[in-house]
């Protein structure tokens, strides 16, 4: 009993170390494990600092804003961080949970009307403000996408034209046998549509495999759980729809050009 009381008194006399949580990237790079003691200070190499115990290793969130920054993240108790960085009793921001959209609007207007020296912002507005980098990347991707579509359209038109041109003798024979122009055009367009559909199927497959590879590769490079490539239903619908329209359009143009040529000319006579 006496020993237990002495031990308790000894513990009370020792400065109690605070705990911190570190992110898995820091834990991995610096080989830090739970229970390790660290000295934290606001400036590199500064003397003194606070000794803390690592109590948790946390997984990084999928935050796009962190992507290009190879920073480490440490979570500390607020009062301890204020003390370490000499921030007094100040904070950078408060996060406020409300009961719903209407309550948010009321809270924002009430705080802004009454507060002295700070402003309330909706989380949505902050997200828009801080995601400018990704808006730029998104615009860039869209521009590249448009160029790719133009290139694909020309390529497809060219291939379809060549495919149909290859069939000059077949078409001439069909026309001489009495098959109508409309039937020939329908036949060629159906063939073009089928070709485009098969291409779409292959394209979706290749896209899915590429997407898996891109996510695996960049998640490893940037060490983030963020998804870099997502194949969604609207994207597949757009790609398939566009390919079908382009394929059928190209087939139609090429076949119309062919059926307008006299059959004997198609035979080379």
């Amino acid at each position, binding site marked *: 009993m006496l020993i237990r009381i002495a031990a308790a008194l000894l513990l009370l006399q020792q400065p109690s170390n605070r705990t911190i949580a570190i992110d898995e990237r820091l834990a991995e790079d610096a080989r830090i494990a739970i229970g390790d003691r660290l000295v934290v200070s606001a400036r*590199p190499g500064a003397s003194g600092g606070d000794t803390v115990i690592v109590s948790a290793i946390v997984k990084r969130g999928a935050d796009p804003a962190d992507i290009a920054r190879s920073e480490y993240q440490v979570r500390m108790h607020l009062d301890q961080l204020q003390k370490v960085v000499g921030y007094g009793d100040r904070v950078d921001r408060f996060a406020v949970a409300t009961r719903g959209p209407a309550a948010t609007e009321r809270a924002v207007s009430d705080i802004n009307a009454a507060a002295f020296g*700070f402003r309330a912002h909706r989380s949505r507005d902050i997200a828009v403000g801080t995601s400018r980098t990704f808006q730029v990347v998104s615009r860039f991707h869209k521009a590249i996408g448009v160029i790719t579509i133009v290139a694909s359209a*020309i390529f497809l038109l*060219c291939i379809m034209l060549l495919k149909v041109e290859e069939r000059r003798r077949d078409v001439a024979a069909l026309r001489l046998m009495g098959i109508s122009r409309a039937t020939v055009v329908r036949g060629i367009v159906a063939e073009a549509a089928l070709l485009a559909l098969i291409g779409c199927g292959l394209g979706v497959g290749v896209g899915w495999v590429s997407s898996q590879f891109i996510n695996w590769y960049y998640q490893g490079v940037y060490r983030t759980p963020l998804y870099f490539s997502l194949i969604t239903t609207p994207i597949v619908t757009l790609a398939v729809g566009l390919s079908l329209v382009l394929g059928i359009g190209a087939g139609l143009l090429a076949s119309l050009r062919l059926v307008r040529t006299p059959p004997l000319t198609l035979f080379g006579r």
Partner: protein
Amino acid sequence: MRFALAWSSLRRHSTRTLLATLGVAVAAAMLLDMVMMSTGLRESFRELLLSRGFQLRLAPKGTLPFDTDATIENTSAIVATLRSNPNIVTVSAVLGGTIHIPVGDRVVTSAALGIDPRVQGDYELLSGKDPLGPDEIAGNDDFLRATGARMGDTLDVATGYDPQLRTYAGSRKLVVTGRVRFLYGAANQLATAMQLATLQEMGGPDRRDDASLFMMKVRSDSEVEPTRTWIERTIPGVSAISTSSALAQVDQRLSYFRQLAIILGTVSLFVGFLLVTTLMTVSVNERISEITVMRALGVSRAHVVQQIVLEGIFITVGGAIAGLGLGLLTARYLNSILSSFPGLPVAIDFFLFQPKAAWMALGLLSLSGIAAGVYPSYRAASLPIATTLRQEAIA
């Protein structure tokens, strides 16, 4: 003769030739853009870093210059240590901060750099003079526009704004002496420069001897790495960054764009090759009888191959020339999109035209055009003449 035959053959199928040339042009434009992007950003950043001849930079340990708000203490001692090294020719200490200028009933907030104007490498003077005095300030066009200040005007400049108390930690009256352009400034960013000591004093006791960055000129390029190692060994708490290590960091951070450029460039090259190959194969198949007749008349195999390869070269070179113009136009448009990255220096170009890279891209495409024509033409020219003529006659 070969040229004339190849040209007339292409003209006979004008729509097909036009479409193929257009396809190659788009592929060439894309290829050129991707080559420009894969090398442009790095080269542009390198040029910017070396534009004032500073080969080494010192930032707080583990950070890149101005990547965080961290500063380096004991600037005077560090400058003295650096100057003791005979390889270091120039040392320029820079402190970054934020200043506030009341203009009427509003407050203009701007970035501020504390520098030594005699050795600075952060801006170029456009008009007026450098802020050589302790109560002088120079600003960029955005700053002068926002404050409405002109040369010789005196501004109330404050730092350390406390939003809760609406007070400032330090305040000075500074005279506008110069109009400058900041080399590392982002688009529409308000920025100013003043004496390092002025900004340090305005920051209060905590910042009295602080700097955010040191820039150094080293006697020769071969001394950069030994000097960098010496600094890291001698001065704790700082990271010494050479131009090559800064480029490596940028490469790592923006590897996505380089890899995207490589992938899309390869796809473009492949698409161009595929297009010309398909066209040439179909064209040759269509002209088997014509080719066989030529062969029967005594035209050599090499002549036939050369004529068909020439057709491929015409399409590829025509497309590549059109693609060069198209590529430069699209590169300008894509660059305008990426230049709006928040915080990116205006001087950085994602798409930088380098003649060597452009010629390499177009050369690759032309080679693929030649390669595309060789196989089908050789195959057609190698067919047995009598058998082929008989088959064609039956058909």
